[in-house]
């Protein structure tokens, strides 16, 4: 037992959790916390907008695979975090967000900068706490990290009234805690794994659909072992992109609205699908009723509530997918030796890849999104971390940028938050300063959080903004071309701003390229730079993303080109 203030207890509890960096912005209601930070062994990264603090914590979490931490004050500081918290919730990313709150006696009085942030955040947090006395803080923080990081990870909010931060109490820092209503399943039911093995061994045209859960649990080698044992082609969801090396002989890439054509095609020809850490989202599978008709479905997930939510299944393996996959592979290896790589199903895989490689037309221009991304892949080392903004840039990244080293790619896939990529890349750089980090960006999305350039420069977290710039809200423009008779409404950016000057204004580096040769040079310069670099790449505003599965239709209705 040791006596200290609530604010000091918070900082000490974070240090005990192994937190080395927090992203945040101070204000009236978290002044005691910021005062305690002065003496802390924590690196504080000052953001220019709280949304970015949450995205940075999220990016950090996805690379470290442990909770990222962000701070904000009450009222607008807290509400500014919400987009970032909702983004983390939609993608099951663990963050612990600590907000200041008005003093206890002022709560409910509509005080200055008061907002019911617990109420606001409820639908997009895994859990939230509002400690009412300083002595609760050590246990609350311990529980926050446990809840955020275990089971299906997610954001946890800790809202601390200012007087609770200031109050002094005898503090006890627990090493073990128990949360009565919360016991995430780790080891799956062996009989369900047995059922899954039976189904798989009977299948003639099996397919694996790997989702974000594989990345969250780090089940890369286990997934590869299953695929290689039964020689099963692997598609991923967009969230699962990079769960499986995309240059592997069984890889097919992401499926979905802007999935790879061959992946969308092979999925509807399969007779059995193994969905691993995936939730059958509308963006991945199109129409729920149509998807998986006549197929046996094996669903492996850590969250029991995902089973049967969007799709009925034949075997439900609930547990950590890393442990489940290990048991499944063990069970299967006793019953089967390696499969023939020349079987008709794998021939079909090759046929589809060749067919679409020959059929899909490239957009006729010196610089295109596809060519730029292929060039980026060629030059970037395999272990580089890549994230994306949201929109056309994101879907082009999904289609044309192959992830080689598992777990090095992430994006706002669930909520689709514009402005995510850049701050998230800074968070990732804070987690892994030793590898290059690239944000595959579009101009519209980058605009939303570009003031994080200040953070990148001042905190020495140099990342590369690979800006595919068509001065358009490109994805909306594409939909207006496709579904609204080319009537543009609210999508044109009119050559504003000048991104090279923006970079320079913040003390970063801006490179405008006009040819593929200049692009190659630009990427190489950026990789050697010790400040953030924006590579401004002109993209024709008429370049569409194909293939395209229109909303409300099935994967079979995929449009492959204009």
């Amino acid at each position: 037992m040791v006596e200290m203030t609530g604010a000091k207890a918070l900082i000490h509890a974070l240090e005990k959790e192994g937190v080395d960096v927090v992203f945040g912005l101070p204000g009236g209601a978290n002044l005691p916390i910021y005062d305690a930070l002065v003496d802390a062994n924590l690196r504080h990264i000052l953001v220019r907008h709280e949304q970015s603090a949450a995205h940075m914590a999220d990016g950090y979490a996805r690379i470290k695979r442990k909770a990222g931490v962000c701070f904000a004050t009450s009222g607008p500081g807290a509400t500014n975090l919400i987009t970032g918290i909702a983004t983390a919730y939609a993608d099951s990313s663990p963050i612990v967000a600590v907000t200041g709150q008005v003093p206890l006696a002022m709560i409910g009085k509509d005080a200055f900068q008061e907002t019911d942030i617990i109420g606001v955040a409820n639908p997009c947090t895994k859990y939230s706490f509002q400690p009412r006395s300083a002595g609760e803080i050590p246990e609350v923080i311990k529980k926050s990290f446990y809840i955020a990081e275990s089971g299906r990870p997610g954001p946890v909010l800790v809202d601390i009234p200012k007087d609770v931060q200031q109050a002094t109490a005898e503090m006890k820092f627990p090493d073990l805690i128990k949360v009565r209503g919360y016991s995430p399943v780790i080891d799956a039911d062996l009989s369900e794994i047995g059922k899954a093995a039976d189904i798989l061994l009977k299948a003639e045209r099996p397919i694996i659909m790997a989702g974000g859960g594989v990345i969250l649990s780090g089940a890369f080698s286990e997934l590869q072992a299953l695929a290689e044992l039964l020689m099963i082609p692997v598609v991923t969801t967009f969230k699962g992109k990079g769960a499986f090396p995309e240059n592997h002989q069984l890889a097919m890439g992401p499926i979905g609205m802007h999935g790879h054509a061959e992946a969308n095609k092979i999925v509807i020809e399969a007779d059995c699908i193994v969905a691993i850490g995936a939730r059958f989202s509308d963006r991945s599978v199109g129409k729920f009723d149509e998807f998986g008709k006549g197929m046996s479905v094996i669903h492996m997930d850590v969250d029991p509530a995902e089973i049967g939510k969007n799709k009925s299944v034949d075997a439900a393996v609930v547990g950590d997918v890393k442990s489940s996959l290990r048991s499944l592979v063990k069970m299967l290896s006793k019953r089967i030796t390696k499969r023939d790589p020349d079987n008709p199903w794998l021939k079909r895989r090759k046929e589809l890849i060749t067919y679409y490689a020959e059929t899909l037309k490239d957009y006729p221009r010196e610089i295109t999104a596809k060519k730029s991304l292929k060039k980026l892949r060629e030059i970037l080392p395999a272990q580089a971390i890549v994230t994306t903004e949201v929109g056309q840039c994101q879907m082009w990244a999904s289609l044309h940028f192959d992830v080689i080293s598992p777990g090095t790619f992430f994006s706002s896939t669930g909520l689709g938050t514009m402005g995510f990529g850049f701050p998230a890349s800074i968070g990732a750089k804070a987690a892994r300063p030793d590898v290059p980090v690239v944000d595959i960006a579009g101009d519209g999305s980058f605009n939303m959080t570009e003031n994080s350039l200040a953070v990148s420069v001042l905190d020495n977290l140099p990342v590369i903004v690979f800006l595919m710039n068509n001065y358009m809200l490109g994805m909306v423009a594409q939909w207006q071309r496709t579904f609204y008779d080319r009537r543009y409404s609210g999508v044109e950016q009119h050559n504003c701003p000048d991104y090279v000057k923006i970079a320079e204004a913040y003390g970063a580096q801006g490179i405008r390229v006009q040819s593929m040769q200049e692009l190659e040079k630009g990427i190489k310069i950026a990789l050697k730079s010790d400040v953030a670099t924006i590579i401004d790449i002109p993209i024709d505003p008429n370049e569409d993303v194909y293939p395209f599965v229109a909303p409300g239709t099935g994967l079979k209705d995929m449009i492959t080109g204009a």
Partner: protein
Amino acid sequence: MSAASAATAPVMESDRSWYIITALVENKPGVLFRVTNLFRARNFNIESITVGSTEQQDLSRMTITTNSDERTLDQLVKQLRKLIDVVEVKVLDTERTVYRELALIKMKAVDPTTRSEIINYASIFRANILDIGKETITVEITGTPDKIDAFKNLVQHYGIAQLARTGVLALPRGSGT
């Protein structure tokens, strides 16, 4: 302690059934909010929800009734279990469950014939007269939702001035838990 109830009778539709769900939840502020917000956010249709204390000081019991198909029920239960403040969730087998609802019904009753008819019906339904004013009679009735509906339908034509229902409370029969 709080209670709320929609005054609709259990409606049987082909693929839907009437279910009673009971949940033990942490007895602390904000839990009812988290549960009802979940129902709203996921579009679950709830007929009634009650919450009150239990034999354990730190736990409250919620009783929820719903008309759902099996798939929706399955999701409702799983999503409830996912809430960290929810300690235990069960779908009760209505055949092996005792369940009751309480209603207060205030009726317009001015003339003596009406008054004696209402008092007569109340005694048949084993309801209690709680209050008699110059123009109204208030009755307390306990029973299954069906019984309360039957009484309500019977007295409807006198004019119901006000009506309040608690929603269903339920416990498994015998030594069931």
